[in-house]
């Protein structure tokens, strides 16, 4: 009984805290879900109204979850050709969302924009591109994405790119190639954050060696707690204080819970057996997934599972280097209590119960992410004083 009372009140405290320091979420795949489900027909998924049946994300639930800034992912699949045009369509989708729901969403390109969004009570909407395939080996295209408002680039998705190894592919260049390092330098010069989720540990280390700006992990958890290649090894987390960057913990059960890792491997095999891509989130694919789940009960992660990761990551990297990246609408399953974007208060309540102080939680939810983007902007100003745009090409550096 007393336990229940405390937890209700800590949930209330969490909500209060989030009103002052809302969540900056590092990764949300709503644009891809809109593409796959309705071909960008935004009328068919009016996110001003509840979309529980179709999406993890809508504006009422973002409000309930205390989200103050969102990096919308302009992800496109790395196993399909023509990533660049598909990425531009994703960018257009985010812009259409911002234009359509202008009372709720605010375009954001800078740390100052994030703060302005917080003051206005609108959700600062940033963009991140998920995978180096979106720049098609071209620094000109990278600059084009920056000009269009993209503020982080994940160096790879699930597949390698020619200049960087992915965590979930066979190593080829052994981290970053010479051109890959030039990509990182050009991102520093532009003020685009280097995102190391999805990349191999060798790539993480090479990027940390190269980058003069803080890096982020837009949606990755701790490998010490759950041995999945998508998670961050401790020796990399240890480097974040020196770099100034941050790791944004993700909730995806198959990355945070060891039992779920094993279960997912089996489920993916089942999807492939039915002719679907393992990450397919179309209704037909989800049906197959649900059928598998009925016969093989899914191991359940909870807010406590994610809090375990945060506790560990805090010990290794420090409170100034943590954040949150839910990966909503980019994953078929979510932890109990964090089932959609309305769930963040449950995680904050759990951390309050574990003794996290309010100033610490403010860093986790808001302050670190704003600081990191601002620091990248500072580095960019400095770098632009030193050198112009890079003309390097993959052929010239790696050929």
């Amino acid at each position, binding site marked *: 009984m007393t336990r229940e009372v405390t937890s209700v009140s800590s949930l209330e405290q969490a909500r209060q805290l989030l009103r002052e320091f809302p969540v900056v979420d590092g990764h949300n795949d709503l644009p891809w879900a809109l593409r796959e489900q309705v*071909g*960008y*027909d*935004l*009328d068919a998924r009016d996110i001003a109204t509840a979309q529980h049946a179709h999406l993890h994300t809508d504006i009422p639930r973002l409000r309930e979850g205390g989200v103050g800034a969102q990096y919308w992912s302009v992800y496109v699949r790395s196993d399909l*050709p*023509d*990533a*660049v*045009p598909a990425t*531009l*369509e994703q*960018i*257009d*989708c985010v*812009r*259409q969302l911002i*234009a359509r729901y202008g009372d709720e969403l605010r375009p954001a390109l800078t740390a100052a924009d994030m703060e302005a969004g917080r003051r206005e009570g609108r959700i600062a909407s940033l963009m991140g591109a998920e995978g180096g395939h979106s720049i*098609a080996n*071209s620094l*000109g*295209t990278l*600059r*084009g*994405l920056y*000009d*269009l408002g993209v503020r982080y680039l994940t160096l790879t998705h699930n597949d390698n790119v020619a200049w960087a190894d992915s965590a979930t592919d066979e190593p080829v260049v052994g981290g970053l190639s010479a051109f890959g390092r030039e990509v990182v330098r050009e991102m520093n010069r532009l003020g685009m954050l280097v995102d190391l989720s999805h990349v191999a540990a060798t790539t993480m280390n090479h990027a940390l060696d190269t980058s003069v700006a803080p890096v982020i992990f837009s949606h990755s958890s701790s490998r010490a707690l759950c041995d999945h290649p998508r998670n961050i090894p401790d020796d990399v987390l240890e480097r974040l204080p020196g770099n100034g960057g941050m790791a944004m913990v993700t909730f995806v059960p198959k990355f945070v819970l060891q039992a779920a890792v094993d279960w997912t491997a089996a489920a993916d095999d089942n999807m492939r057996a039915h002719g679907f891509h393992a990450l397919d989130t179309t209704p037909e694919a989800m049906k197959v997934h649900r059928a598998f789940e009925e016969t093989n009960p899914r191991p359940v992660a909870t807010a406590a599972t994610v809090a375990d990761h945060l506790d560990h990551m805090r010990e290794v990297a420090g409170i100034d280097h943590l954040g949150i990246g839910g990966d909503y609408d980019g994953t078929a399953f979510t932890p109990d209590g964090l089932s959609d974007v309305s769930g963040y208060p449950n995680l904050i309540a759990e951390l309050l119960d574990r003794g996290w102080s309010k100033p610490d939680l403010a860093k986790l939810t808001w302050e670190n992410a704003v600081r990191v983007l601002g620091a990248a902007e500072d580095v960019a100003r400095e770098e632009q004083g030193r050198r*112009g*745009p890079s003309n390097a090409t993959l052929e010239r550096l790696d050929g």
Partner: protein
Amino acid sequence: MADLQDELHTTAEVGPLDPSAPPPLALPESDGQSDDGIGSVLGLPPLSDAGGDGDPDAAPIDRAHAVLAEHPVADGYSGLPWALRHLPWYDLELGESTIDTDVPRMRRGHVGALFWALHLPDGLTGDRAVGATLEQLDLVRTVARSHPEGLRLAGTAGQVTDARNCGRVAIVLGPASAAAIDDSIGILRVLHSLGLRVLTLAGTSWASKAGLTRFGEEVVREMNRLGVLADLSGASPATTSRAVTISKAPVLCTRSAARALRPHPANLPDETLAELGAAGGLCLVPLTAEQTGPSVRDVADHLDHVRAIAGPECVGLSGTYDSGIAHPQELGDASCYPNLIAELLRRGWSEPDIGLLTWGNVQRVLRCADFTAKAAQQRREPSTARIAHLDG
């Protein structure tokens, strides 16, 4: 509200003060300049009231410079982005002999605005077409940023005028190939936001020999809504007449001369010129030996013809420099426009008509595109049409 001004009247903010106008009824003996006096006695109308600009007895080349100083050239096509791509290093401010265009020569040629073509080699699609377009847009932005004294990016008619008034050559982005939008209206919007202002409607499934498909028409409507001009040089006749019909903003032909004079496939037959003129469109005559002929007089013949058929409001110039194409003699680079204008003066073109040809018509079309876009944005949501639905 610079975009509400009529740009034919340059402001007094830059350049020397206008000399005071001569007294309207000056007697020959009271005029210090005997040339003007003779002109008055002979009853020749003054070509300009701004001093000696239009001095009818000055050498045509001097008059050409004077007229161009007031009505600079808005050049509708430059291949610079692709040409610069292959240069390891260049400085347009100091001058660059390996190309046809640089700031000193544009100043000598009185170029006030330049459309930078983003056309791609044929056959690029998908990643390569869109990626190459992004690279070219990036290159142009980089070039503009690194030549702030000479060049300035302009996205609207007002910005073109502002650049001109600040003594900069206005850079307008486009035309780009239709392939650049990879069959997606979303990508069209994204490229517009990066500055693209002209798109050539040719070489895709939705703008082919058969004309515009339903999706193609939707692209034109979205271009109107955004303020992206349709370029029909190289478009099929079916596409051209359909685009002229449905476009709410004037259409352009960035590189088309008169087919009646020279049977080049990109040149326009008289009926198309007339159609274009009736719709308030604009035919920009290229300075290329292939399309217009090998001499200045050949180019002037085309200009005469297009002016006669389409009207003086519907003819303009496109240098087509740095496109790997041979130019007529005496029109070899961007500094040569006075040679052409001198020829037109010899043929009796009036200063107002020359002003329309070099500058006014392009400004009108850009301004119309801006206003059409503003009006359309009040009435239309961004198009969500997809090619698979409309043409599938």
